């Protein structure tokens, strides 16, 4: 027997949200289509909460939280879920740190135990902290192998003067080389408290049973002092900024970034629709597999890719707690100067800033986004992610009412968002020019013998 369709009921309206006495926010949603359960534990701490000299500490702390607790030895942290065929992971970004497990439903109690241990009983063995320093630096260096990522880091840093969204989540290398075990542990203790967390359980479970188990594992963890929140606000940008990189490479890239509204801002959804018109509808799930947008009929794809100036274009507007960036990235076709691409890109952006979008475009992107929202809700893991993500960035109602809110966005609202956000003084332009790149890599030594 099949269970009834649930996708369009996948909203916080049908998910129950409660708060325990110690301040832990709990969201439970039953879904009985598969014998699985997904548990996500979210903390309101990300790279924006880091002080100068301590950049990257949130992400490094995330790594340490897989390295053993008082009651779970390091080498059992993963096996505890894998015994049930489960998958596990974690990620850190600018606003949030989160941990997840998805496994057979009979693993629920083990998963809740694991998350309660992670919240309260991390060990932070000094040798383990030291060993993880080089792992994190290796992760940073792997990212720096990618010219687009290097350009993104530099453009973001140039776009912000005052707000801590300016530094990358992985941190700056000198900070990673100098932070101490006590820095890590202090950060962990300040932010890993129930009144700074949201626990999400979605799957083939019974709500009352879930709540009983949560109370048993988390109920006795004491609340902590309310963490200090970021006070910095980015002042209005006074004029266009530029970053020009020249490095070894084989392709040229352009990135254009505009300061953009936060998720809860009424201008966020008009801008999301504008991005869909410019580069295709991506939806709003950072974690989903459906990230490749339908974009062939979008304005920038036609102007840049169909015209053969560029081999790809993508836009990015992600829901964030505070105002972040709307970015457009372009890969130049082999041999096309970046100046030509920049001119064509800015021309299209200028046209839409002056004239807005058409009624036919609005109809199309509303439909696209509606389909994306359905596709993104294709697993207990994805649904649990969305519920926790929007709760953590302070905009649960945006997700809960996403489809009706998208339907209500007007042409005038999109035009107003385009005119305000896409202004020349609000943008930072970055270029990556490849230099001294060998056209074919050199194979240096072949068939060297010996083990």
């Amino acid at each position, binding site marked *: 027997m099949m269970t009834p369709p649930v996708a369009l009921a996948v909203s916080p309206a049908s998910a129950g949200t409660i708060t325990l006495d110690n301040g832990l926010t709990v969201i439970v949603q039953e879904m*009985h*289509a598969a*014998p699985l359960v997904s548990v996500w534990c979210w903390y309101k701490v990300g790279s924006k909460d880091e002080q100068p000299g301590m950049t990257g500490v949130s992400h490094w702390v995330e790594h340490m939280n897989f390295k053993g607790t008082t009651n779970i030895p390091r080498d059992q942290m993963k096996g505890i879920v894998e015994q049930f065929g489960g998958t596990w992971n974690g990620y850190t970004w600018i606003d949030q740190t989160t941990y997840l497990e998805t496994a*057979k439903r009979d693993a629920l109690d083990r998963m809740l135990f694991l998350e309660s241990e992670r919240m309260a009983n991390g060990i932070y063995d000094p040798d383990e902290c030291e060993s993880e320093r*080089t792992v994190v630096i290796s992760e940073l260096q792997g990212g720096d192998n990618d010219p687009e990522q290097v350009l993104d880091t530099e453009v973001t840093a140039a776009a912000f003067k005052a707000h801590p969204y300016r530094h990358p989540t992985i941190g700056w290398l000198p900070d990673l080389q100098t932070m101490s075990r006590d820095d890590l542990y202090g950060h962990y203790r300040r932010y890993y408290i129930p009144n700074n967390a949201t626990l999400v359980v979605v799957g083939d479970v019974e709500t009352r049973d879930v709540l009983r188990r949560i109370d048993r594992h988390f109920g006795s963890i004491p609340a902590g002092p309310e963490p200090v929140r970021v006070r910095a606000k980015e002042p209005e940008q006074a004029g266009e900024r530029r970053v020009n990189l020249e490095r070894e490479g*084989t392709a040229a890239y352009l990135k254009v970034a505009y300061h953009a509204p936060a998720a809860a801002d009424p201008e966020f959804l008009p801008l999301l629709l504008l991005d869909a018109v410019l580069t295709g509808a991506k939806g709003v799930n950072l974690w989903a597999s459906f990230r490749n947008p339908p*974009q062939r009929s979008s304005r920038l794809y036609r102007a840049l890719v169909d015209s053969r100036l560029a081999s790809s274009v993508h836009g990015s507007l992600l829901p964030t707690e505070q105002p972040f960036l709307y970015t457009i990235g372009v890969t130049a076709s082999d041999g096309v100067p970046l100046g030509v691409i920049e001119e064509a890109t800015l021309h299209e952006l200028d046209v839409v800033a002056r004239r807005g979008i058409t009624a036919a475009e609005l109809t199309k992107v509303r439909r696209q986004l*509606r389909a994306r929202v359905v596709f993104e809700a*294709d697993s*207990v893991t994805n649904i649990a992610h969305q519920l926790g993500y929007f709760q953590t960035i302070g905009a649960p109602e945006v997700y809960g009412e996403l489809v009706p809110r998208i339907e209500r966005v007007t042409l005038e609202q999109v035009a107003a968002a385009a005119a305000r956000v896409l202004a020349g003084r609000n943008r930072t332009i970055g270029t990556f020019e490849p230099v001294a790149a060998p056209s074919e890599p050199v194979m240096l030594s072949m068939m060297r013998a010996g083990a």
Partner: protein
Amino acid sequence: MSAVVEGLVPTRVVLDNGTTVLAHGSALHPAVTLLVALEAGSAYDPVGRDGVGHFVSRVIDRGTATRTADALSHALEFRGVSFSVGVGRHTFTLSCTCLTEDLVEILEIVAEVLAEPIFSPHEVETRRGEIITGIRQDDDNPATMAGEHLQALLYPPGHPYGRFSRGTVASVEGIRRADLTAFHSAWFAPGRQTVVVVGDIAAGAAIDAVDRAFGGWRHPDGPILVPQAPPPPVRRHVSVLDLPGKPQADIAYGFLSVRRNDPDYLPLVVMNNVLGQYGLGGRLGDSIRERQGMAYYAYSGIDANLASGTLVVRAGVTPENVARAIASIDAEVARIVEEGITPQELADTKQYLVGSIPRMLETNIEIASFLQTAEFFGLGLDYDRRLPALIEAVTLDQVQTATRRVLDVQRATIVVAGSGAAARL
């Protein structure tokens, strides 16, 4: 109880024109996923024309006999359809996800795209430029370079699994429109395709819809390619690709594995889970990442196909650490060959692999891919239900025998891509 608890219940039908249809209803949400796999992968590239199959995949949906490229993209994008085309060694795949209400119209479009693409000269030239830029980007990516060059070294010259699927800049520059139409005419035929429909639609209705869309397509089938068994490398190779300016070097360290239908396949999956998967990269991750702090990633992966696939260890480290990382891989490979895996590791791995089956079959696209794989390798429609017992039956002796057949540090092929000639090894 859900369908997944009891196992998948696909319906299989072969249409009059030879098309195999697999349909499985799943009412998780009001969407349907369509997966079409044709025996027209890059292994069918003509000799000296590497990248033709991939090139076809980039142009095939850019105009048909009755719809222009613009009309196609409008029809798909107005409905928000998620649409992607890809090429494997043996199969060309087209997958898309649409709202249930749009399925009939989308099936018609998909059938047209596969049967009647026009390969307009304008589109061919535009997509050629994109492909070449993509290849140049890959030339700058140490992970891609190490992996592709390892693949090329593991197979003898000319073997279809050793070629660059996307071609090289030179081969792509030499591909003409006639090469694309000839490839399409030779290998795109209803008897070579499997159409899988998974989602919020009853199997009978899905099969009828596929029949209406594809039933009229007639085209001769052509032969099915079964590649020669590649001879395993007889000695150790180490190659270094110099990529200046890269802070991290990438290591690809590998062997030939076995055919998918070889009895040693599942024992090797078990061994690979212990060597480079369980926890955070198995024994390799424990040594290189957890104990030595050398790398963000260190793991192994196994692939098997109609002919032998590969078993490859990957790790990314600073150039100065390349030699130490290779020595650590050697040590773990030698240890698993020498000592095998422990009874506890065998039990943990079985529990993990069996337990993960429901999770691997949660989404429509996961179910569709699983059914297509089962069809391609002839594993049977009940493979998801038989698989737990097959995994449980694997013994320590089988694991050891299979491991010794595939792994041998003296015959490892190693490619390092990084700067400073990867710190001279």
